[in-house]
């Protein structure tokens, strides 16, 4: 079977119905993943497109949180999915697919950073410089950009732990499996991430909180 651009990537209702899986908008049930994975392992590109549709955004966000360029994040996301396509049998338990993809994307992103900057490979956890306070009243977009920039300066492991637990809703056990660390280490990374964020933003902290209060 060949995949056609003319058919929407998300048009997977047929596969879901075949397996008795309800195809609701935003359905992220492992049962649907199981059906699509089984079909993909038989070379079905449409089924694989369904997996891409369901998980691409998540994998891209994980990669983007590690890397600073969208093009790099796209490359890493693409590579993670291509590896899944080459060997869908690598996923023993369909419920673990999301974690597998996150782990793959994170490892590929770290490899990319290390290849690009071998001299700073050990500096992924270095504490970055502080933020500077803006002049005059802060606007919403400016505040959001400042916090996003501060997040980007967090050490990689702290950033990934925050991304998975706070932004993606992973449990600490699931995050620990993706990051291949203990649950206690995840909790420690999260605490340090939030503390480091406060430190980075401390010069502008008062203005940021004032901006948040105006948004209420």
């Amino acid at each position: 079977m060949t995949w056609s651009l003319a058919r929407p990537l998300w048009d997977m209702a047929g596969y879901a119905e075949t397996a008795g899986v309800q195809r609701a908008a935003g359905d992220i049930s492992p049962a649907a993943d199981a059906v699509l994975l089984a079909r993909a392992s038989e070379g079905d590109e449409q089924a694989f497109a369904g997996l891409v549709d369901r998980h691409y955004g998540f994998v891209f966000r994980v990669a983007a949180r590690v890397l600073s360029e969208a093009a790099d994040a796209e490359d890493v996301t693409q590579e993670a999915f291509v590896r899944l396509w080459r060997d869908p049998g690598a996923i023993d338990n369909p419920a673990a697919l999301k974690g597998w993809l996150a782990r793959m994307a994170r490892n590929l992103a770290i490899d990319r950073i290390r290849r690009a900057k071998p001299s700073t490979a050990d500096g992924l956890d270095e504490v970055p410089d502080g933020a500077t306070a803006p002049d005059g009243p802060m606007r919403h977009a400016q505040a959001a950009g400042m916090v996003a920039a501060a997040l980007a300066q967090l050490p990689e492991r702290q950033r990934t732990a925050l991304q998975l637990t706070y932004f993606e809703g992973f449990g600490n056990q699931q995050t620990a499996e993706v990051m291949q660390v203990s649950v206690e280490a995840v909790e420690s990374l999260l605490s340090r991430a939030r503390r480091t964020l406060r430190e980075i933003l401390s010069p502008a902290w008062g203005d940021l909180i004032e901006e948040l209060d105006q948004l209420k």
Partner: protein
Amino acid sequence: MTNPAPHSGVTLSAADRQRLDQLLQAYGRNPLRWPDADRQRFAGLVRAPHQLPAEAAAQADQVDRLLDLAGAAAMPEPSAARARLMQRVAAEPQLASDVTAPPPLGGLRGLLAAGMLAASIAIGAFVGLDTSAGEMLAGSLSASSGTDEVLDLVLADPAELDEGGVL
């Protein structure tokens, strides 16, 4: 040492307060983001969040709101990125597809194989029907009448069954 929390009936020990500080520092102000076990442990506080340690809760809330602000400004996905991925997938072989199927039998070899298969089936059927296998087949055919009786019971009107004393 324990401190009863007013209005909620929640009593917090020193260990509870220490753990609450850890939770606020790691997971933030919203108990829905806490690990399941801690959420259950502090279920009373989940229903009465105003009982949380005030200063730690306020700091956690500020960081939460800043994170929410940054999350809304996340890096956008490049346009057509998914289509580019699927184009690459279409050109990538799968590991399983590397296994090639054996070529089909043809000509004289194919005829010979088909003849041997047909002969083995015929011999097997003859021997089987003539011996115990034949008796087993006959037994299963007669058992179908028993199956019919079970079906009758299942499909029968429950009132009839009651009258008949089956139930």
